[in-house]
């Protein structure tokens, strides 16, 4: 089942290898409110029909404003959340709906790094315990080698091995994030989904962690899905970019293409919000009207039409699907900005 949307999700991948991880029409819905009768109650479409492919060796940046569902998507990709609908394939094998036992090998290959470095470490366990647990549970290393491996992991993330008997509260934010990374690396994964890994850190520490990600990618041949709302950070680390709006991907393509000439009006508005370091490059900022619509009752047609300055009747009724453009990227818009004249509609 490789339909147009699934193919569009592979746009502008540098490698010709088959995708490492592929989501096909993936949806995540939450029910909330009173549900005494079946079918009653409210449904939140946190992730809505997302197709996405991650290729070995690349860093796929996932951007969007708060509440657009990028974290939920990340947690679905790592199977921390149950998937409501759609398929998830790792190396071609369906793992979206399998039970805990069949999932175990997948757990080893795909790891997650969390946003809040203090919340993601159990305050009542020593670092050595936190790092050793996955090694023991999965039998990754024989018991005798665990100590050596722990030292190796600490070294890999730039922490002195002497810190192994400390508790998480004794570390700074950046150090905790390094421990979080070490824990993910303990599993020797192929793919790491990093959910806003630097947004809780100081700018100076952010740069260190971003560099650590880059070093580890080169050293260990890792593939990343890098979720962030900070567009500058994403641009720096990503080879490809997926832009999300209200649970769906609106634009997908190589970093240079998307940042150079955004095709979706939302991407355009998002990128215009990046402060430019050089005044002469300052272009006009596009300020979107209104708030993010509620994912409980998403607008019909194009999800973005309520805030889009170029929306017309077609946008209000017909939902655009992700489709490839001539320059290789994919976009979910009836009137991509690269195809129409830039002055139209203004």
């Amino acid at each position, binding site marked *: 089942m490789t339909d147009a949307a699934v193919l569009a999700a592979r746009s502008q991948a540098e490698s010709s290898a088959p995708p490492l991880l592929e989501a096909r029409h993936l949806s995540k819905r939450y029910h909330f409110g009173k549900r005494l009768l079946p079918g009653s109650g409210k449904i939140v479409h946190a992730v809505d029909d997302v197709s996405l492919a991650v290729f070995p060796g690349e860093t796929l940046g996932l951007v969007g404003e708060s509440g657009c569902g990028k974290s939920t998507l990340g947690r679905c990709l790592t199977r921390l959340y149950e998937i409501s609908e759609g398929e998830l394939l790792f190396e071609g094998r369906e793992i979206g709906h399998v039970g805990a036992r069949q999932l175990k090998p997948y757990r080893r290959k795909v790891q997650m790094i969390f946003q809040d470095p203090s919340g993601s470490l159990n305050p009542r366990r020593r670092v050595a315990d936190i790092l050793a647990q*996955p090694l023991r549970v999965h039998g990754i290393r024989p018991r005798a080698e665990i100590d050596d491996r722990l030292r190796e992991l600490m070294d890999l993330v730039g922490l002195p091995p002497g810190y192994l008997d400390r508790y998480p509260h004794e570390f700074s934010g950046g150090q905790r994030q390094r421990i979080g990374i070490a824990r993910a690396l303990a599993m020797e994964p192929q793919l790491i989904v990093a959910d806003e890994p630097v947004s809780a850190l100081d700018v100076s520490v952010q740069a260190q962690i971003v560099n650590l990600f880059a070093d580890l990618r080169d050293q260990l041949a890792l593939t990343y899905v890098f979720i962030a709302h900070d567009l500058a950070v994403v641009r720096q680390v990503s080879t490809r970019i997926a832009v999300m709006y209200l649970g769906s991907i609106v634009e997908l393509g190589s970093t240079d293409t998307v940042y150079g000439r955004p095709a979706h009006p939302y991407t355009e508005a998002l990128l215009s919000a990046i402060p430019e370091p050089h005044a002469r490059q300052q272009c006009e900022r596009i300020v979107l009207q209104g708030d993010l619509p509620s994912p409980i009752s998403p607008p019909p047609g194009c999800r973005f039409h309520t805030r889009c300055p170029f929306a017309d009747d077609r946008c209000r009724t017909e939902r655009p699907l992700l489709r490839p453009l001539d320059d290789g990227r994919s976009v979910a818009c009836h009137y991509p900005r690269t195809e129409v004249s830039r002055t139209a509609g203004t």
Partner: protein
Amino acid sequence: MPLTVETSTSIPLVDAHEIALEPVARQEGPWSRAWAKFRRDRTAVGAGVLLIVIVVASLLAPLYASQIAHTDPFRSGLSARILINGKRVPVMQPSTQGLGLGVTPIGPTWGARYLLGADTQGRDVAARLLYGGRNTLLIAGAATFLCFVFAAILGIVAGFFGGIVDLVISRVLDILWAFPVFLLAISLSIVLISQALVIGPFTIGAGSLALPIVIIGLVYVPYVARPVRGQVLTLKNSEFVLAAIGLGIPRWRILLKDILPNVSTTLIVFIPLMMALNIMTESALSFLSVGVQPPDASWGTIILDGESLLYTRPAVSLAPGLAIVITVLALNLLGDGVRDALDPRSKLRPR
């Protein structure tokens, strides 16, 4: 300000080994940190010492009765006489007021015998106070233990497994929550007076201490189980539990290693506060004569004994009343100290 592309090259980054490390002096665990903090809290330590004194005094009740007061606090001493200032004085003194009819028990003597006077049956109130403390503390302690065993199991199971399990447990707790404690105790004891309750190998008679223990213990289960369930729910969605799921750690192991140690602080914080609540409930039940049955004593029954002497010998009721107030106050102060030491950010406050 967000990072710009140039950051990584234009700012010379110091090697992570140098920047990332501010030296951390000690490496203590959360428990030793809490203990160190508790030790500095003078009020809480004082309350703890006071409680130890109360418990030890209560445990030494038989010693006091036999060695110091030379009295049997469970036998009436209506015709007893004691020696005060070289004179033999009857414990039950003829009334000097009004028509001079009837007798009034002796008041506080400030001697070894009848330190706090005698009650209407001529029994030594001081010795009874200590024996009563034994029962009150035993019942409250056992009820607290029972309550916490059930509350911890139910709260953790409901919170961790969720779904239908949570639904059933939560509704049962709601029903228990809605039960009027005293009505339940009164009706049960009325039933048990005529016939002992036999549950398997256990027989609960009307005078058994097990009755107030079970009633108090079970009735307060929801008070503890609900916050525990709430905390387990929060922990279950915390990032470190998600991380453990992502690492493929088995569920029982997550429960044991990640959830339980974090819930245990909440449980410990609740213990003194529940103990205080249980002491008050036990005393109230005994005062209403549905708790400890005569001739056994508890602080509640002694207050009841002193009710008719309130105008002539207020010490009889006042002494156990003060004992309750002091113990409950000390438990609350201790509980505050324990909470501050273990869970400084917690907003959990029972009741």
